[in-house]
């Protein structure tokens, strides 16, 4: 398993836990909030969640690894997502993935060694008319072209038009 720096500050986790009923049904929502705060699911957090919700640790771990919204390893500062929906696929998403892989030096699902970028392929984001779509951080790039990949990675706060 990847090295995790010991995450000593459990206050955010306790905060999150206090806003949900203490039952198994809260598990996925709690983990989503934890993922948002830490950008991954630290093992100490999962242990605390298990204790407070009364769900066995093994089951918490199952849920953490089953759903793709969660990562048990630290993610890069910026997540680059390429939509792999059908419309995007036939309009060239695989070429985008290849080019991003080449440029960042990592395969989809991986994070650059300097923890700057995580590359992910994701399911249809619902912007099919602008296929192929890639998302850098929160910025959508529609009709994305492999030749422009470096510029998408460089400019993080600008949409492709306006």
């Amino acid at each position: 398993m990847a090295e995790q720096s010991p995450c000593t500050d459990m206050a955010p986790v306790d905060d999150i836990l206090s806003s949900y009923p203490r039952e198994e049904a809260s598990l996925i929502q709690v983990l989503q909030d934890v993922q948002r705060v830490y950008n991954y699911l630290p093992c100490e957090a999962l242990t605390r969640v298990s204790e407070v919700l009364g769900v066995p640790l093994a089951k918490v771990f199952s849920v953490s690894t089953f759903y793709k919204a969660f990562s048990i390893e630290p993610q890069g500062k910026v997540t680059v997502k390429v939509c792999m929906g059908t419309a995007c696929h036939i309009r060239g998403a695989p070429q985008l993935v290849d080019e991003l892989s080449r440029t960042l030096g990592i395969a989809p699902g991986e994070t650059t060694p300097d923890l700057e970028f995580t590359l992910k392929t994701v399911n249809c984001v619902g912007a099919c008319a602008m296929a192929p779509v890639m998302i850098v951080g929160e910025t959508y790039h529609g009709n994305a072209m492999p030749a422009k990949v470096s510029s998408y990675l460089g400019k993080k706060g600008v949409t492709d038009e306006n």
Partner: protein
Amino acid sequence: MPKLTIDGKSVEVREGAFVLEAARKAGVDIPTLCHHEAVEPWGGCRLCMVDVTFDHWDGWYKCVAACLYPVAEGLIVKTRTERVMNVRKVVLDLLLARSPETPLIQKLAAEHGIKQTSFVPNDEPTDCILCGLCTRICDHLGISAISAVDRGIGREIAPPFHEPPPDCIGCLACAEICPTDHIKYKTNDFTREIWGKSFEMLRCSRCGKAHITVAQADFFAGRNGVPRSYFELCDECKRKEHADLFARLGGSP
């Protein structure tokens, strides 16, 4: 008590039973892999598929898992139709590709006419067929130390974080229920090791043999309200003690 027909044989079985139980009562053999009397049926291996119908379905059959399909009055079950046998072959062919070196799978596959898998064999053969029996018995016992991790073809049985499981009590139920003996453990009178975790054995205060782990004793004592002292003797010595006690009470010489 619903009455149903299995391969032409009539059988009556209790309300709430599943087809598999009725088949066994009728003496009809349906192969299974993920089924075990100690736990609830799961329907994951897909080996026990059978074709079922009712008179009023006008000849339309449904292919279902016998371990989970509820019996009903007038149910007609066929356990060896062409499509059932095909599914069993595909399941065993696929499992043989996953676990080409596992004797149980080799045997079952051979019984269905498959000597070698027609698919691409696993380049990392494993005995684990992901039947889930280990995690299901662990859950059933209220321990839940291990679970199925990840999903799809990456699915595997593992302790949390792939580290020695904090909740495991070393009871060996998982190893014992595993149909392919995939789960390995070491045990002697002093220590036990399973899932990378070491346990101190609890030795019988009378005969000195170790019968369970300290963790097991603590767990069951805590949960069932049984006094911890109950576990100080192994079962055999407990029986001997009782026998002695009765002898004393009965006043035998």
